């Protein structure tokens, strides 16, 4: 299978490490070449790594509730830095407090993320295929844009 490079990390001042280690193993086992930046990654560190490795997707985690502040302007920053086609995924516990997950997901989709996994999605089943499909669509100039 063709090698696809992706960048993985936990954004902001967040140090939740467990899910990050599991995601690294999952996407590696599914054949992706994963650059795992670990915890506490800034937007620019994600983008630097994506440029350096030629990554076609950036997989962002946020578990501590500050995603609204940390993710603001991420898509624009990608565009500014020349990442026109990069697929952006976001997952985790995205906001402070128990709120309507659909509304939360929409908020981040509006920010420019291609897919948003809010709340506890602890089953890793078809996410690898989904990512592969989204990357293929993006190569063909189509952004997924759910919701």
């Amino acid at each position: 299978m063709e090698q696809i490079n992706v960048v993985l990390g936990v954004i902001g001042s967040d140090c939740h490490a467990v899910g990050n280690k599991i995601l690294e193993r999952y996407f590696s086992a599914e054949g992706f070449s994963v650059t795992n930046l670990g915890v506490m990654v800034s937007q620019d560190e994600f983008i630097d790594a994506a440029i350096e490795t030629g990554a076609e997707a950036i997989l962002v985690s946020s578990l501590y509730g500050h995603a609204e502040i940390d993710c603001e302007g991420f898509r624009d920053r990608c565009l500014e830095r020349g990442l026109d086609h990069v697929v952006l995924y976001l997952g985790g516990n995205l906001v402070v407090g128990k709120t309507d997950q659909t509304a939360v997901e929409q908020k981040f989709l509006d920010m420019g993320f291609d897919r948003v996994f809010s709340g506890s999605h602890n089953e890793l089943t078809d996410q690898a295929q989904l990512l592969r499909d989204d990357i293929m669509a993006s190569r063909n100039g189509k952004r997924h844009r759910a919701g």
Partner: protein
Amino acid sequence: MNTGLDTQKFTEERKTVLQSWPTGSEVDLEEAFAFHQSLPKKKVCSIRLQEALDQQVVLLQPRAGVALVDEHIRLLSFLQEESDLLPTTIDAYTRQNKYADAQKGIERSEQAQRSLLNGFPAVNHGVHGCRSIIEALDKPVEIRHGTPDARLLTEIALAGGFTSYEGGGISYNIPYAKNVPLEKSIRDWQYVDHLVGIYEAHGCSINREPFGPLSGTLVPPCVSHTVAIIEGLLALEQGVKSLTLGYGQAGNLVQDIAAMRVLKKLADGYFRQMGYTDYQLSTVFHQWMGGFPESEAQAFAVISWGGVVASLSGATKVIVKTPHEALGIPTKEANRDGLLATRQSIQMVADLSPLDTLRISEEEELITSEVTCLMRSVIELGAGDLAAGAVRAFEAGVIDVPFAPAVCNAGKVLPVRDNDGAVRLFDTGSMPLSSDILAYHRDKIAHRAKQEKREASFQMVIDDIYAISKGRLVGRPT
């Protein structure tokens, strides 16, 4: 070096620390001592802990913290009735010394009329903001956080009147930081403990609580106990007098009771062996720190079980989870409900005389032997300096915390449950455990693998990490 900080150097360092954010200028030690001395007994944490130790009851403490002072006071006032000790959980920006980001969070929270921060930014609110919390409440309040360099936060929090303070140079680095050298965090926490020692010397009691659960993910008791004992010793050297050592619930009743019982015994043993006699020692049990079920009913079952074990294991206090744990930060109602469920479960077993079974005493012996192996190695590596020993022990993987983000942690150790659900070592990394202990772990895991008709593997570890959130303790194959 594990030695009391030099007064002159400490004084110089303080000036720099207090100048690192404008609110640092609000700290006046003499005035702070007077404030602490004026506090009624009911607001002093170590006094409340002593009552609990004497009466052999478990104190309940939630986690809570929001961006704005008034909102935070409202939250704690709401939780006060069901709590014995109150918290002030610090936001993640402050934990990383990003006070400008915290300021942005405060402003945006004011605009949005809801908290955009996951805790209380105490440095930004300053001594006066902290005082208004202490003044508004009737119970002791502790700072709970995860700050590798907590020097300024400690200055402000202690001057602000908090009488209890969580953290340590290892336990607030390994699970909470990525690139902070262990030498630096240990040194910065010696500053914290030294400052606490100065308050103690002026008759102001400040309880100190090393963070027991570490990564909160299948941490073997011997690993967290060794860290707790080292941090206790480092704190005592700087003049700390009231210590609460912690342990995170692993899930197997026998192992958890054994772990809590030996924690105090082992700590007392090492403290006395190293010449410390003048201290108060209590314990804290953390309800399950790993992933929770999304269903609130299932979450209540996990919480209640934690209450039962806290009581049966003789903990002095218990840190309470909420039914919203799977989704992040809880509403105040969910937080209170966690306390209510915990209180009920504790009171269902509080009158039971201590459980004595052979299996608990065997597990106590095992943990004692493991900690003895690890501590012996740390002491040898330090060659007379426990702080250096701790740094070298992490470098060598002698202490190795599973699933921790810090690069100074080896990260080779992998835990997995045995067939009874107790946490065992699947990959022992470089931890210097005796051959009979290693064989015991190997046999226990082999037994489970045989029962499940599969090899022990990383998949089994992942299954265990998610098992409780999916409704059971052990991650059996489906």
